[in-house]
Structures are given as C-alpha cells and as structure tokens.
C-alpha cells in the first residue's frame, strides 16, 4: 500500500524529472541547457504581462481540470472536454453574434450561461450513451470532440463567417459588451480568472463537504460498496459528466469572450486535453488542480518563449507536457508496485 506522503510527493518528483530530461533534451539539441530552461520556465514569469498571461492560460485549465477531477474520482472518464469547450465557445459566440449591435450588460452573463449549457449538452450525450447502452464514455466523449471541432469549422467558414472578413474563416469581432473586462491593467488577465478560482473553491466544497462528493468517491473506489449503500452509479455518471461538460463549456465561453474575442476555427491549444494532465498532476484534488493548472499554463508560455528566444518549434510544449504526464504515471506506478529481478526459470 502506497503511503499518502509518497502519493503527494510524486507530482513534484515528476516535475523535477521533466526538468532534468528537458535539460538533457536541450543539450542534445545544441543549446545551453541552463539558458534554455531559464527561457522556458523563468523568463515568462519575470514581467507583469507574463504573469497575466499565466492567469489567462491557467483559467481554462483550472476550470476544466476541476470538473474532470471530480469525474475521475468517480471513475467517470470524460476525455472529451475539448469538445465540450468547443461547444461552449460556439454557443457563447453564437449568442454574441445573434445580438450583435443590440447588446446590453445582460449579454455577457447570457453568453456564459449559454456556453455552460452548450458544454453540458455535449457532456450529456456520453452520459446518456453510458447509462442507457453502457457505451464507454472514453470513446464517445473523445469522438464527440471531433464532431464539435468540425461543427465550429463549418460555422466559421459558412454561416457565421465575418461578412467584412476578406473570406477569412473567422466570425466578426464581438462587441465590447460581449467581452470580459480586463482586471489587471497592462495584461490580458480578465474576469475569467476569478471565475476559475470560484470553480476551484466550489470543487473543494463538493469534494470535502457534500454528500454527492462522498458518493462520487465511493463509486470510484468501490462500486459494489456504493451499490450496497444505495448510491446510484447512473446518477454519479450524469452528475459528473454534466458538471465537467458545463465547466468546460463555460471555459470555452470565457475563451471566446476573453482573449480571443471572436470565433475562429481553433479556439483552444488543446486545453481540454491538457486539463486531463492537470487533473492527474493535481491528484484529483481542487487545490492540486489549481497548482497544476498554473504549471501547465507555464508550459504553454515557456513553449512560446522558447520559440521566440531559441527558435525551437512550438512542439516543445507538447514534449514537455507529454514528459510530465509520462513521469507522473511512471512514478505513480513505481510507488504502487515494486520491480523485482526474477531468477532465470529453472529448466
């Protein structure tokens, strides 16, 4: 049985191993590893603007990560947050476009609600398929991501294309009333950041205080005991998929109403998938998710910085995120299991 302390120690350990491997990787590519790591992990945090960017990127990651972590606790594997985010963006963007030139202070809240509802609806599909037909939600939610992305593509290249946009596949820019206000002068940090913090707090309350949080935990740990206690597994599946879908949808709405300000064919650099790493790196705990979201946000910023300073391809972000998940899973495995050298089998 792995100790609690070891389980908490693995994420920092995985981060350390990632940094070390990153140094080796940079050295192999012919860069000074110290300078490259500084560019990747330190430089982005040295300016106010950089810190604001960190918050901008951590916002969707934390928000989605909280929802996913709750589901993962109950063994509900929503892999399709990217799709739910996309649908949230579509709904929020659709509302912004529908009321273009006819807006008021009610528009932004409506977009947020619409975005959450869109993500929630997208999460409801795998919930229904799982509870009705026992279809694996990993597959259905993932496949629905591609549907959502294609739907967005269709909309921005077709009906919702900016009439004055020189045929670029983009919607028109939203009106000011449809944009989240900046809360830190000189940065892009917007009202979404406190919303994400609110989601973290709400997630913590659900996990630590509520009965539904307890039920999720029991269903995840021991489904048979949950059946014994009279907890409905179907209810947990619905709750977690709707919640994580809704939060991802809200994150999508925040993205289009925040840093992007219009609908584009691609509105997320894979936040929905990165949030899976965030959830695990944060040990499925809301506070851990918040810290992990900041770290993963940094990996996006570092990738951009490395691109600017060192001329590395942006793929370096994916490499770092992948290594982090790999080392985390490997450390977890080795915490739970011990390797033994087996004597060669006697003839």
């Amino acid at each position, binding site marked *: 049985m792995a100790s609690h302390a070891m389980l908490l120690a693995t994420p920092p350990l995985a981060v350390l191993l990632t940094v070390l491997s990153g140094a080796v990787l940079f050295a192999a590519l012919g860069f000074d590893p110290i300078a490259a790591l500084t560019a990747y992990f330190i430089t982005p945090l040295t300016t106010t603007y950089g810190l604001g960017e960190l918050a901008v990127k951590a916002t969707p990651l934390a928000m989605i990560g909280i929802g996913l972590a709750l589901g993962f606790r109950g063994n509900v594997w929503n892999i399709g947050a990217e799709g739910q985010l996309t649908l949230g963006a579509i709904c929020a963007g659709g509302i912004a476009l529908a009321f273009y030139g006819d807006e008021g202070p009610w528009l932004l809240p409506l977009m947020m609600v619409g975005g959450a509802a869109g993500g929630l609806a997208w999460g409801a599909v795998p919930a229904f398929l799982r509870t009705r037909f026992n279809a694996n939600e990993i597959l259905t939610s993932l496949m629905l991501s591609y549907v959502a992305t294609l739907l967005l593509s269709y909309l921005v290249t077709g009906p919702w294309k900016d009439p004055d946009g020189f045929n670029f596949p983009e919607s028109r820019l939203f009106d000011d009333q449809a944009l989240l206000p900046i809360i830190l002068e000189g940065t892009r940090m917007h009202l979404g950041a406190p919303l994400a913090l609110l989601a973290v707090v709400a997630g913590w309350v659900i996990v630590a205080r509520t009965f539904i949080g307890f039920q999720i935990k029991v269903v995840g740990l021991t489904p048979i005991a949950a059946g014994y206690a009279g907890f409905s597994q179907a209810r947990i599946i619905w709750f977690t998929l709707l919640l994580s879908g809704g939060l991802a949808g809200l994150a999508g709405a925040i993205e289009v109403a925040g840093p992007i300000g219009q609908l584009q064919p691609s509105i997320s650099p894979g936040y929905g998938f990165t949030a899976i790493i965030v959830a695990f790196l944060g040990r499925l705990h809301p506070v851990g998710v918040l810290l992990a979201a900041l770290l993963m946000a940094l990996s996006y910023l570092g990738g951009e910085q490395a691109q600017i300073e060192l001329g590395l391809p942006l793929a370096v972000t994916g490499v770092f995120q992948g290594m982090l998940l790999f080392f985390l899973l490997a450390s977890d495995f080795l915490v739970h299991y011990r390797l033994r050298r087996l004597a060669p089998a*006697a003839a």
Partner: protein
Amino acid sequence: MSGGSTDTAPRLALRGMVKRYPGVLANDHVDLTLEAGEIHALLGENGAGKSTLVQIVYGVVKADGGSIRWNGAPVNVDGPSHARALGIGMVFQHFSLFETLTVVENVALGLETGAGDMAALAARIADVSKRYGLTLDPQARVFDLSVGERQRVEIVRCLLQDPSLIIMDEPTSVLTPQEADQLFETLRRLASEGRTILYISHKLDEIRRLCSRATILRAGQVVATCDPSVETAQSLAGLMIGVEVGPTRRGASVAGGGAELVRVEGLSMQAANPLGTPLHDVRLSVKKGEILGIAGVAGNGQNTLLSALSGEMLSPRADAVVFEGQPIGLEGARARRERGINFVPEDRLGHGAVADLSLSDNALLSGWGRWSLVRRGLVSFKKSREKAAHVVDKFSVAASGPDAVARSLSGGNLQKFIIGREILQAPRLLIAAHPTWGVDAGAAAAIHQALIALAEGGAGVIIVSQDLDELFTLSDRVAVICAGRLSESRPAHEVTAEDVGLMMGGLFDAAIAKGGSAPAETGDTLHGQ
C-alpha cells in the same frame, strides 16, 4: 521425503519466535514443536498471533527473533518457495484458483518447476487423489466444482510437492459436515504416512476429534499445550480467551405471535454474473421478533438471494418481496434502507465497507439516511465520527478510532464494526451473511447477544451462514438453500444438524423423510468462528 526423518529430532521446532508490528507484539517468544506424523492444532482468537506464526514458518514473514529447526537442523526460511523446497506445504483458507481453467491447468500453474507434460500431470493428480480419497476429475473446470472440491484441488496441488509438513488454515470453514468428515479421513491418512499436519481452526469440536496435540496462543504468547481429546470445548475455550464462556443459546420459546414482517413469494431470478447460481421459486417468510437461519454451502445461490433481499438486484416482480405489507421487489437498496432494512454482506472489504476510507466515512456509507448524517446535501462529518466512535466502543472494535482506515482493521474487527454499524441503526429487518465470520469467540458471543436482543425488540433477522452451530444457536427456524432452491423452513428445535447437513448436500427429501425427531445437538459447542 515423507516419513524420511526417523531420528529423534522433531520435524519442526520453533524456539522463542518474536515478531513485532507497530504497536503490537504479534508473537512473544513462541515455542512450537511438531513431531512427525501428528496432527497438531494451533488454536487462538483473532489476533492471537496464529497467522503471524504460520507466515513465519512458511517464509512469508521474517521473524524478529527466535530460531527454527527443521528435522533438527537450523534453517532460515527465505520465502514460500524455500519453504516448499524444504517440504513445507500450505493450504490457504481462501483459494487461489482460476475458475475458467481445468483442475490440471490450475495445478500446473502452481508448480514451481514448470508443469511439463499435461497428460502426465493429470495422471499424477489422478494418482494422488485416489491414494488419499480426494475424488477429483483432473479435466473438470473449476467453476463447476463445489467448494469442497476446490479445496481438494488445493490439497492435491500441495501434495504433489510431497510435503512432510502441511499447514491447513481453517480448512473446514467452507465445508459441509460430510465434506469435513471426508477431509478428516484424508488428513488422518496423511498423518499415518508420517507427515505432520498443523491445523489452524477456531472450531473446538473439530480439534477435539482430529488433533492429538494443541498449542494455544493468546495475545501472542503460548498459554498451553495440551491434548485436546481429553479437554472439553469449554475448557479449551477458556484457555483460548482467558475466561470461561458459557454458550449463548436461544430458548426454544418462539415468539410465535408476531405479525409477518417480510415475505418472499415465488422468486426466480438470474444471478448477477454468468457463473453465479440463479434462484428457483424461492419462498420464505419472517415474523417480527423472529430469527430465520438459512444454511447452505457457499455458491448455492446465497449471493443472489442476499442481493434480491437487500435491493442491490431488483426482483422480476414487485410482489416477489413484500415488506410490512408493501411490495418492494422493484425498490432499490436506498429505498429499502429507508424502510428500515439493514444488511451485512458476506464480503467485508469491498462490499460492506470501502477499504481506503476511514471508519467514520464507512459509518456514513450505510448510516447516512437513518442517522441523518446529511443535511441539505452537506455531510456532517462530526456526527458520522461520533457514530463510528460509538460503534467502535459498543462492539469493542480494535481500532485506533473513527479515523482508522477500514483496510487497517483485521477481518474480525471489521466484521464487528459492520455488524455493529447495522445493528445500531435499529433496523426493522436485519439480513446478515455470516455474522461472525472470522470473529473470535468472545466477540462472536457479543454479536449473537446483539442479534438476539434485536429480535427480542421486535425486529426480524435473517441469517445466512454455513456455520451450523451458529444457526442453531440463534435461529427460531432454519431453512437450507441448495442449487438456488430454498427448503421449507422448520423450527430449529425440530431439526438436527445431520438433517441440515444432508439438505446442504441437496438431499432435501431424504432429510425430510428422515424427519426431525431428535433435538438439535448444539449444547456444548462454542461458536468460535
């Protein structure tokens, strides 16, 4: 190797074995001497240190002190494979067999040196099973085998290594009386060949019948070595738990006048998994204040019946299960709990409790409704800790407190916790599977008293158990389940243990034809399960 050691050195001599775990001295300078050809009982309550001692002998656990002599020579047992190489075999209480494989395939998987030719191995299995009266078809698939037959597979697997010491861990806990008698025959034959058998059990009758010597452990120390055949069950129990324990016995006075509490009528249903036993036309009825005992060998549909009663599986019809006049066959576990039906499942970890959660959380698991631990969706963890602490206190659960993780408790203590948790919710109907499984004699008596008190308070109780002594001690009426059918229930004082044993083997008619003339023979047995 068997019968090889003819010199005067004992087969196995343990001297001053010490094993310390955090906070407890599991073995405190234990001496144990096993001679060739004897059947030696190791007797003790839960937590007395029996398992630790056996694990040291079998090389699973390293002792902190003491010496082991094997046929006179000092040894260090490095691990189970070393133990087997020395000639020490062990048959575990819980079988490690693959259900979908055949007997010979299962045996092949357990052999150290590689199986070699399967046909030759099958012939060896047939040979060994014939020699020791262990009827077994090498080509049978394990899921078709009864529990007794499965145990034979384990014994044969052990015998193929030609051990000179065989450790049996509570071998009869899963057997019918007839199967147990057959097992004893086999064990006597093995002993007559000069093999030594170390027999671990709580069942005092068995030990008195079978064993020539007994070493009794209490709190990690040897308190006595005696000849059990000249002791009484009472005196052995006294040695084992340190105080004289009188048998709890339910008076023959049946609380006959109670109104009907629950009725099951024509219940036929499939098991939850394809290898489970389906139910055929089960009917039963329990009055208020009555205890119904359901006997049967494991795997005869008990699990399906228990799920159907608890609501974890829904019945095909609402009126298949009627509780206080209401058809509840289509109600789930939650709704039935709210009606006052409580349930103690057979599996403690993973069904009745969540292994990784604290006792406090496990109190919340089943008690959230009746103890009102949830208000407006928020859990009162303070209250659930209090409830857990109350259970721990009231049922003397050995645990560090309500924050102890369920997994950290011994099986018997977790059983006490689960039983206590359900009883303290003041159920109107309690359904308990093996209520004292793995619990020591003192605690078993306390659990029995609590169940009787519950019934005397007007609740109905259904007990499903293989322990006939327990069923006869507690039950007003007894029924037997076999191959998914439930016999008519009969007043416990009209049925003999032999009748029930026959019915457990499926011979309903034989037992009924024989009639229940003799009163149940349970007087001086102690319920040490």
